[in-house]
C-alpha cells in the first residue's frame, strides 16, 4: 500500500462536530466535510455558525469558487447539523454529493415512520417540560430535548440546499459509494444497519411511558382525564374540609410525584437521544495506508455489530485516525475497542467544550484508556500549547493534523 497525504481539520465549534478532510489526489484535491453543528448547551468561544463562515473563507482562498466534494451529516442532532441553518450562506458552496443515513430518506417508509415517531416524542417531551416547574433533572432533560427537536432549517439545507445540485445519498452499512467523485479515496460505510432488530433498538421511548405532572394550571383539554369532572375536588376545597383531614397527601408524597416525573422525563429524553445517535453514519475513509475513522455518535449497539464483523473489525483495527465518538461519553466508545482493537499511537480527535451540567463527559476512564494505548489526543477545547510535528493550531479557530506521504508515521 502506498503512503498517502491528507489533512484532517477540526474546527472548534464548542460541544459539537465539524471536520474537513483535505486529500491531495494526483492533480486534484478532494474535500469532504463531516458534520457542522454545536450543541444548544455548549459553552466556549466559538460555534458552528462561526465555523460555517470560516469554512467558506478558507475554501475561497486564492479567489477560488468554494467547492466541497462530499458533505456528510452523520445524524440529525443539533450538535452535528446546526451549522447548516444558513441556507443562503451554503448556497455559495458548490457541493458534489450530500450523504445522510438511510433514516433520512424521504422515500423510505420505514425511515419516515421512525423520524415521525422521533419528532413526536421530542415534541411531547417539550410539552411535558412546559407543564412543569424547574427541577434539577428537568434542566438536564431540557438540554437533551433541545438537541433532538426537529432541526428543520439545517435539515432543509442538507436535503435541498447548496450550489451545483448535489446528488443525495442515503447510506446504510455496506452501501457502495465507489462512483462518488472522490477519486482514489475509498469510503466504507459501517453503520447504520437496516437490520430489523437494530431498527427496533432505534425506536424512541413511548410517549405514554413517562409521567405528566402539571405544576400550576392543569391544561383544560389535556387527555386523558381519569374521571368525569363531577368526581373531582380541588386542592383548596379538599384541604378546607374537616372530614378529609386524615386524607391529606402531605409534602412528602406530593414531592415524590414531582421528583419522579422530572426523572422520568430525563430518562425518556436520554432514550430519545440514544435512539437518534443510533442512526449515526459510521464511515472509514481509506487513502493509501491511512484509515480515518468517523463514527458520528454511534453508541454501544452499533459498535457491537461492527466489532462482531470480521471485515469491519479488521478495518477499524487499521485506523490511523479516530474521531472520538459522542464527545467522549462513556458508552460511545467501548473500552474493549480501545484496549483490544485500536492500534497504538493512533491519533484521536476530541471535539469538545466543557458543559458544566455534564461532569461525566468526556469520561475519565475512556481518556485514561486512550492514554494507556499511547493515543495522541487532540482536543478542540485545549489545543496543544507547544509545537507538535504535523499539527497546526490556528488560534481557537481550528486544528490541522497533516499526514505526509513520505514521512514515517
Amino acid at each position: 500500500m502506498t503512503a498517502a497525504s491528507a489533512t484532517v481539520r477540526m474546527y472548534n465549534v464548542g460541544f459539537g462536530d465539524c471536520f474537513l478532510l483535505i486529500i491531495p489526489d494526483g492533480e486534484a484535491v478532494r474535500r469532504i466535510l463531516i458534520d457542522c453543528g454545536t450543541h444548544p448547551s455548549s459553552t466556549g468561544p466559538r460555534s458552528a455558525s462561526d465555523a460555517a463562515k470560516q469554512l467558506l473563507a478558507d475554501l475561497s482562498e486564492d479567489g477560488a469558487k468554494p467547492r466541497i466534494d462530499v458533505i456528510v451529516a452523520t445524524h440529525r442532532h443539533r450538535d452535528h447539523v446546526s451549522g447548516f441553518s444558513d441556507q443562503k450562506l451554503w448556497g455559495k458552496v458548490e457541493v458534489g454529493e450530500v450523504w445522510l443515513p438511510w433514516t433520512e430518506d424521504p422515500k423510505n417508509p420505514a425511515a419516515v415512520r421512525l423520524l415521525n415517531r422521533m419528532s413526536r416524542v421530542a415534541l411531547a417531551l417539550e410539552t411535558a417540560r412546559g407543564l412543569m416547574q424547574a427541577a434539577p433533572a428537568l434542566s438536564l432533560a431540557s438540554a437533551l430535548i433541545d438537541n433532538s427537536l426537529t432541526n428543520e432549517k439545517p435539515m432543509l439545507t442538507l436535503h435541498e440546499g447548496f450550489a451545483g445540485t448535489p446528488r443525495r445519498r442515503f447510506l446504510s452499512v455496506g452501501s457502495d459509494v465507489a462512483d462518488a467523485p472522490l477519486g482514489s479515496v475509498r469510503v466504507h460505510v459501517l453503520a447504520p444497519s437496516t437490520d430489523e432488530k437494530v431498527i427496533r433498538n432505534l425506536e424512541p421511548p413511548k410517549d405514554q411511558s413517562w409521567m405528566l405532572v402539571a405544576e400550576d394550571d392543569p391544561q383544560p383539554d389535556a387527555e386523558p382525564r381519569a374521571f368525569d369532572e363531577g368526581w373531582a375536588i380541588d386542592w383548596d376545597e379538599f384541604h378546607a374540609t374537616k372530614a378529609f383531614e386524615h386524607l391529606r397527601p402531605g409534602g412528602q408524597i406530593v414531592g415524590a410525584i414531582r421528583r419522579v416525573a422530572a426523572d422520568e422525563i430525563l430518562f425518556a429524553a436520554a432514550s430519545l437521544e440514544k435512539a437518534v445517535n443510533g442512526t449515526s453514519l459510521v464511515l472509514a475513509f481509506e487513502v493509501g495506508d491511512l484509515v480515518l475513522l468517523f463514527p458520528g455518535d454511534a453508541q454501544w449497539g452499533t459498535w457491537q455489530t461492527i466489532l462482531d464483523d470480521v471485515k469491519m473489525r479488521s478495518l477499524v483495527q487499521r485506523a490511523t485516525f479516530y474521531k472520538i465518538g459522542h464527545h467522549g461519553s462513556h458508552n460511545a466508545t467501548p473500552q474493549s475497542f480501545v484496549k483490544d482493537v485500536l492500534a497504538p499511537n493512533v491519533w484521536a480527535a476530541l471535539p469538545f467544550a466543557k458543559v458544566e451540567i455534564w461532569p461525566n463527559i468526556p469520561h475519565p476512564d475512556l481518556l485514561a484508556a486512550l492514554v494507556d494505548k499511547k493515543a495522541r489526543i487532540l482536543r478542540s477545547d485545549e489545543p496543544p500549547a507547544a509545537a507538535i510535528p504535523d499539527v497546526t493550531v490556528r488560534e481557537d479557530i481550528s486544528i490541522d493534523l497533516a499526514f505526509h506521504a513520505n514521512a514515517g508515521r
Partner: protein
Amino acid sequence: MQVQRGKAYDKFERLHTAYLRDEWPDRRPLKIFAFDPLSGNTAGNIAIVDIPNEKLGLGPAGERIKVIDYDGSYKRFYAPVNLNEGSILMRNGLDPSESDPRFHQQMVYAVAMRVLENFERALGRSLSFRGRELKLLPHAFRGANAFFDPASNSVLFGYFSADTANPGLNLPGQTVFSCLSHDIVAHEVTHAILYRLRGYFNEPTNRDVLAFHEAFADIVAIFQHFTFPDVLRDAIQKGHGNLQSVEHLLGLARQFGHGTGKSASLRSALEKDGPQPDDYKTVLEPHARGSLLVAAIFDTFFKTYQARIQDLVRVATGGTGRLPRGDLHPDLVGMLASEASKAAQSVLGMCIRAIEFLPPVDVNFGDYLRALVTADHELYPEDKLGQRAVLIEAFRKRGIYPEAVRSLADESLIWEGAEHKLPPLKKSVIGDLMTRTVLGTDSLGSDNQPIARYLQDWARKHAAELELDPERTTAIRGFHPILRTGSNGRVRVDIVCQFVQERQTTPQELAELGGLRLRAGTTVVFSQSGQVRYLISKPLADEPRPGRHGIVVRNVKGIQDFIKQIDLEDEVLAWQDAAYLERRMVERSNFALLDRGLGVSS
C-alpha cells in the same frame, strides 16, 4: 291509642346499639377484578374477596392501609368512598366500574389487605409498618407506571392512554388504570412489605438484590390468582387439568402489557423457551433476571400440583391416569381446584417464610434457595411430597447455585450455625419478647433500650462466630418470634434477630460508591430456649479472604467493580450532573425508575 316511644323501643335500641358496636362480623366481603377490566369476560374476573374487617374511615382508611385519592398530574382529589354505607355493604362492596373512582379505592384497599393477610398467615405473626400506615394513591399521576416510594411509605399508581398504534386488546387511546390491575397492586404492595421486612434489600450490592425484590413481588402477585376459586376452576376445565397451558392465570398484568403495545401480558411465570442453564449468567436487567426466579418457583409449584393430583386422576380414570377427552366432571374439577389451591398456598407460604431465613443485606438467589430449603425443612423435615427436591432441581436447571456449598443435597443447603454452641440468650429476654408479642407492642420500641443493649453486647461477645467486627457498632434490625406447629402437634417458637454493621466511608469513598453504604450483617435464628440454630452471615472485608464453610466473604473491591460494570450499562449516566453521580447507586434502586413502565421499557 297514641303510639309513643316506650320500654319496648328502649330495649330494642339497647340491643341494636350493642349489636352495631360489638357484633360486626370478622370478615368484610369486597368486590374486585381478579385480573383487570380487560379480562371482563374471563370466568371469575369479578371476584368477591373476604378480608379481615376493621374500623374503616373515609378513604377507605384503616389501621395499616389508607387510600388517598390525590391526582398529582392535575393537583386535585377524587371523592373518597365510605365502605360502611348500607347500600355498599349490602352488595358486598361497590360493583366493578372503571368510571367510578370509589370502586378503584375499594379495590386497591381490598387487594392490599389480601396481600397483607397472606404474609401474616405465612409468617404466623402480625405485621405493621412501624406505626406508619401504608398509603395507596390509586390515581397519583398520568403515566404508564406504578411504584412504591419508601420515603413516604406510599404506593403511587398511574393511569395512561392505551397505545393508539398498537393497543392490543384495549380500545386505542382507552384509559388504562394500573390500580385496577390486581397484579400490579399486589406487586407494589409486596414491594412495600418486603421493604418493611428487609429494609436493605433495595441496596444493590450485587446483581441479584433488585432482581430479588422484583421476583418476590411477581411471585406473590401471581400466586394470588390461585386464591380465587372460580378462576381456578375455569382454568382447570380449560387446561384439562393442566395449569401450565392457561395464559391469563400465569401472566402478570395483562391489560397493562397490551396497553403499552406489547400484545401480551407484562411478564409470565413461564419461560418462552424453557429453562436455559446460562440464563443466570447472561440475563441482567432486574425484571428479566427476577423472572428466572419466578419461573423456578412456578416450576416447583406445577410439579407439586401434579404429584398431588396423581391419585385423584387415577381414581377418576379407573386407574389409567389418562383423562378422557372432552370436559372434565365438575366434581373432579372441584377436587383438582382444591388441590391446586392447597399446593399454591403451600409453595407461597414457603416463599414468604423463607424471608425470615435470609441475611439482612446483600441477598442473592443462592441465599434464597438456602432459605427456602431451610424454611421448608423446619416444617416438613422428611419432604414426603418431594417438594424440596423439585425446588432444588428447578434452581439447578436455571444455573442458580449458592456459592460455597459442597453439594445440592438438603443437608448442604440448610444454613448452619448450631455447631458453634454459642451460649443461649437470657430467659428474661425471651420472656419479654413473648409478652410484647402477645400484647402487640414493639419488641425494640424506645421503651426497651436494655433489650437492644443486651443483644448488642451478645453480638460483640460472639462477633467472630457471627462474622462481625467486634470494634464496630452493631444495630439490631428486627427481633421477633416465628411460630410453627411441630410434627408432634405442639407449637414451636423460634426467634429471629438481625444484626447489621456499617463500615464507615469518607465522603469521597461514598461518592465513588454512588452513595451505596457498605454493610455487613448476620441473621441469627434462636430456638425457644435461646440456643443458636442458624447463623446466616454476610461478612464484608477490606481484602479478599476465605470464609468458613458455606459463607462467602465479600470485599470492598468486588463491590466497586460491580458498580463500574453497572455504570457502563447506564445510558443516562452521561447526561447526569455531579449530584446524581454521587448518589447514582441509590437512584438506581429507586423503585419508581426501576418499575418504570413496570419493566416494559427495558
